[in-house]
């Protein structure tokens, strides 16, 4: 067992342990690590956004390539600074309006195509299917999607005869889906935890498995 002598490994180990202490209870060590994390993340964000987003997308085209059209997005972007002064902070709504307009405008056709059309298209029964299993799966998918949609139907009370059973099937499938994704994520989360513990045992404390 030979403990690592690399300062960075020690820093990683101490920070890892500080976060793990939160499992016991909230304590100053955890709060220190939490605030360190928040500070570093915001600082990291500022540098990365400046270097990878602001500099190439605003500074270079406007001030180096002198494309004057960029004055408009630049001035709109400057309006965000008004959020520091409450009286004129309403001006952030101008750049927001541009972003919202572009975002909403782009999303309408794309969302209809990918979310609504594609998903329902692949649930429609399209025989012939190669074998019985494919038939059953296609039927379950077809009935399943429709019953989930009926569950999310708000214009008829759920206690109507036909609707009651279908939405029950829908809720059953929803719960089955949630259980499945919960179960599937357990493996992924545990691999992460095992990875952290393996780092502490192996890299930091140098305990070689016997």
């Amino acid at each position, binding site marked *: 067992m030979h403990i690592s002598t690399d300062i960075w490994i020690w820093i990683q180990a101490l920070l890892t342990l500080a976060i793990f202490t939160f*499992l*016991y209870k909230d304590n100053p060590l955890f709060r220190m690590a939490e605030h360190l994390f928040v500070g570093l993340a915001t600082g990291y964000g500022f540098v990365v956004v400046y270097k990878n987003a602001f500099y190439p997308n605003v500074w270079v085209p406007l001030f180096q390539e002198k494309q004057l059209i960029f004055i408009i997005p630049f001035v709109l972007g400057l309006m965000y600074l008004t959020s520091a002064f409450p009286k004129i902070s309403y001006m952030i709504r101008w750049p927001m309006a541009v972003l919202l307009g572009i975002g909403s405008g782009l999303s309408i056709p794309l969302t209809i195509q990918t979310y609504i059309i594609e998903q329902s298209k692949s649930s429609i029964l399209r025989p012939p299917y190669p074998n019985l299993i494919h038939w059953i799966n296609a039927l379950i998918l077809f009935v399943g999607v429709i019953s989930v949609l009926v569950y999310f139907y708000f214009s008829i009370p759920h206690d109507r005869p036909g609707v009651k059973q279908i939405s029950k099937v829908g809720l059953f499938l929803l719960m089955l889906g949630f259980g499945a994704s919960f179960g*599937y*994520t*357990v*493996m*992924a989360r*545990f*691999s992460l*935890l*095992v*990875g952290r*513990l*393996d780092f502490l*045992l*192996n890299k930091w404390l140098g*305990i070689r*498995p*016997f």
Partner: protein
Amino acid sequence: MSVRDFFIKLSKIDRKYIYLIILIGLIIPLVFPPNFPQKMSPQVKRVFEFIDTLPKGSYVILSADYDPSVAPEVHPMYKAVVKHCILRGIIPIGMTLGVQGAGLAVEAFTEAERVLGARRDTDYVFLGYQAGGAVVILGLGEDIKGVYKTDYFGTKTTEIYALKPVKNYKDIALVISFSGSSIPVTWAVYAYTKYGVKVAAAVTGVSAGDFYPYIQAGQFIGMLAGMKAAAEYEYAVNQILKERNIREKPSTDAIRMMDANSIGQLLIILFIIIGNIGYFLSRRRK
């Protein structure tokens, strides 16, 4: 205290003890690896047996399209498949479409040199990184040595002994794309659908779900998904090493981590059972 009270009390343990049990439950197998025998699941078996039954001297492309963030799950797969090919006299051609994969792939080949005494450019080839993604995949369909003028270490591909009989996908038995994203699908679309070379995927557990449709459509011959598949493959390769009584100790990261993972997951199942028994008994008492 009757048995019932015991179970009710058992279902009300404080959260902190649960965390302690989990912590201990994971540390023990990491330090004292139980090395459970890993029985191969169907998807992994398809890939393993495909390689196992290839004739000596055939070629397999192993594309390390992953980065350090998914290394814990995907890297052990790459190392295991490299060793498996060399043990079967099959020549793995390493490459990567992502810059970050190169360093990891080199490490896998160095381990093969250490454990199996593999010789570069005779038992394996490592071509390194080439930018372009789909364009590279297409190019390999035409002329591998045209796309990769030199290998990762600078040797001219035309002079590499192992690459003499290789021109394009027609001389490649299988391509495996190791990735944490959807790059294997690009391989399936460009390499399999267009050139007919067989493709397999080696991916993280979480992203496995998105590949099932492609497997059903027959575009992948099989898939290695998550830490479990890595452990199964690693275990199978280590068995071959034992048969050949090769003394060098291979890395057993995936097996050790998967054993700890399995114990953790079994503990959760235990908690669900205990939680319910206690809940069930206490409800009946009211």
